[in-house]
């Protein structure tokens, strides 16, 4: 019974996980695709991230909110925290940190790359600082080990509020409430709709970010220049706020014409080979790649799911069959053991039906009791059982970020409906399994039953 219950519960969780992933990824891909198309002349330059990185702050992880998680990269302020967000690593399912925003994942000195502005054909260079703020979650892998990872609550994006913003799409354009940021704005933020919901604040309100208060001047719709959890503020505000003065995470280089993009990118590469240079076209290509990867992965996930379902179905069939057979044998044994009693009952005037209903009732009560015990055990052991009995949905198993995509077995919950179904099944099986024994009992000939000791 416990098995019967754990399996559907596990399947439900797997299905739900896949569904959520599908929705998340499709939305994000659509939005990002739009945003890239709006700025085809853009070239993003950032330091190659070391390992799965980016950087951000985790509130939970630290005694003080700025304490680094791991040692800071050489020459960087102490409080830069290599994390998993904020940079260029695409993480399907967890789109906190500018997965497609093209930010550098490791901080770089803002003055170091001033020569880029002098490259022929470059119209403008916008320094950007992008830092994630989030919390740690503990993820349990199917093998039972656990690890922490940072989930971004929002991404702080500092952009230069200078005249450059008037000519290039460094800020979101679809403002839904209030206004966008203006030149030399300070102490103010532009929130995404997601941010607005997260902070429960609207235009005119105040948000507290890393212990500093900011006035919300506007809210933008989510299909803008950047993705859903990014909030915008003055670059200098962001630098001060994150104790990051003089550092940025990426440079947005704008070519004068779209034809010049490739030659500029090559020149930047020649000047600074340590930089990761990504053109808008490349980002679009990457996106296409991700999209097709995702399609593959989704296919795999669906294959896994259908495999899960057929495996689960087999397991349920086996469990059901085993249960019926056990009940059948237990009841047959009972009938045999009680032949004399049955004979007595018949001799004193119990009809076949009286005897049969008696044993049917006993079978049903027995399996109902078993069902209740099973539900109790199943409720407690469902996560464990479903991890043993079912394959995990492991869509993104290869990139190191599978945790979010794996149906966490800890979330296997036995619903009341499932309990009722289980109880109903138990009763049905009890009736089914005791049908033949009860019939056998009812056919007992009293004369023979009497002689039976």
């Amino acid at each position, binding site marked *: 019974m416990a098995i019967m219950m754990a399996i559907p519960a596990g399947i439900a969780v797997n299905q739900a996980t896949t569904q959520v992933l599908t929705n998340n990824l499709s939305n994000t891909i659509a939005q990002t695709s739009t945003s890239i198309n709006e700025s085809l002349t853009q070239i993003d330059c950032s330091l190659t991230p070391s390992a799965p990185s980016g950087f951000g702050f985790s509130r939970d992880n630290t005694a003080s909110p700025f304490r680094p998680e791991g040692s800071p990269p050489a020459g960087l302020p102490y409080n830069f925290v290599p994390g998993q967000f904020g940079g260029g690593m695409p993480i399907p399912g967890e789109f906190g940190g500018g997965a497609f925003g093209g930010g550098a994942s490791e901080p770089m000195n803002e003055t170091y790359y001033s020569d880029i502005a002098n490259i022929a054909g470059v119209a403008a260079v916008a320094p950007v600082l992008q830092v994630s703020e989030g919390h740690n979650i503990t993820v349990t892998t199917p093998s039972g080990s656990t690890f922490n990872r940072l989930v971004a609550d929002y991404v702080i994006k500092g952009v230069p509020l200078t005249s450059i913003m008037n000519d290039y799409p460094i800020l979101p354009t679809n403002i839904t409430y209030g206004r966008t940021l203006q030149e030399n704005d300070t102490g103010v933020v532009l929130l995404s709709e997601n941010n607005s919901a997260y902070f429960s604040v609207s235009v005119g309100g105040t948000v507290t970010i890393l212990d500093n208060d900011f006035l919300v001047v506007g809210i933008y719709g989510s299909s803008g220049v950047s993705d859903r959890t990014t909030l915008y503020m003055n670059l200098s505000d962001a630098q001060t706020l994150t104790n990051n003065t003089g550092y940025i995470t990426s440079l947005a280089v704008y070519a004068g014409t779209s034809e010049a993009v490739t030659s500029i990118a090559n020149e930047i590469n020649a000047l600074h080979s340590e930089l990761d240079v990504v053109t808008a076209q490349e980002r679009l290509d990457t996106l296409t790649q991700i999209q097709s990867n995702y399609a593959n992965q989704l296919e795999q996930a669906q294959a896994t799911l259908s495999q899960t379902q057929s495996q689960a179905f087999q397991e349920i069939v086996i469990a059901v069959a085993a249960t019926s057979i056990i009940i059948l044998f237990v009841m047959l044994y009972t009938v045999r053991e009680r032949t004399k009693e049955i004979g007595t009952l018949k*001799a*004193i*005037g*119990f009809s*076949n039906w*009286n005897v049969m209903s008696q044993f049917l009732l006993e079978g049903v009560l027995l399996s109902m009791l078993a069902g209740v015990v099973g539900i109790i055990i199943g409720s407690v052991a469902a996560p464990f059982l479903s991890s043993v009995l079912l394959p995990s949905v492991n869509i993104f198993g290869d990139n190191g970020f599978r945790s979010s995509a794996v149906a966490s077995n800890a979330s296997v919950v036995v619903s009341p409906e499932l309990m009722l179904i289980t109880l109903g099944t138990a009763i049905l099986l009890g009736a089914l399994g005791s049908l033949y024994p009860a019939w056998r009992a009812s056919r007992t000939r009293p004369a023979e039953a*009497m002689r039976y000791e």
Partner: protein
Amino acid sequence: MSETVLKIENMSKAYQLGKRTVQALKNLNLQVKKGEFVAIMGPSGSGKTTLLNVLGCIDKATSGKVLLDNVDIAEMSESKLFKIRRNKIGFVFQTFNLLPYLNARENVELPMENNGTPKSERSGKARELLAMVGLSGREEHRPQRLSAGEQQRVAIARALANDPSIILADEPTGNLDNKNKQEIVKLLANLNLKHGTTIIIVTHDGQVAAHTERMLFLSDGRISKEKQGLHLAKKLICPFCGSKLQPNDHKCISCGKVFGAKKNPAIPEETEGIQSDASQVFNSATDGNSAYSASFTAEG
């Protein structure tokens, strides 16, 4: 006393034992009147149990008629027979056959469960019957907390539950010690005398049989002999010559045989230990009827 409860006409019963057909009962004829107290005796394999099973509708006759209250049960289908068993027959078994997980009262209520007796009446009736067999105050005891004799009393109360036309007792004293045996026989005799219950006992035990009013000897599937028993004296009939007795007689005026010891067996409440009574019967029987005593001896 003259109404016929049971009438068996030319009844035969055969059954297969491997390839061999065993003719257990052969053209048997028997009549039992209402209020009679009958013993069926015979050696093993003589067909006693088969006869009882046929009478109790738990086995079917191969041919002939078995009329119970003028209804032929030999022809009846199982779907009707259970009602006969329930309402017309009370079974008493050698091994008591009480349900171990039910208490005395619940065991007695069992036969009333399916015949429409209102639930409210069952318990009262069961208590009444248990009182009748001398088990007042023990109604809520489970069988394992009762002595063998007490268990058989419960079984007798259960047999009486639906006011059956006839009580069939299969070796009712077979599993009892001497004292309990006397008690049970006394109980059955008193039920017969006071309530007019028709009782048929199948027994090996000559002493038990002697306390009925009519002893039938089965051998080879037929009733080979029939004798009168001591119980008749309680009904003021001489067991030996059938003459009418006076309430305080212990010796028949007509035939001169002694059927009671010092006390008068005609007073049921004072029924003595079977052994002493039986020895009297033995003595009397030896005097004038050697066949009678021979059969007892043979039965051992």
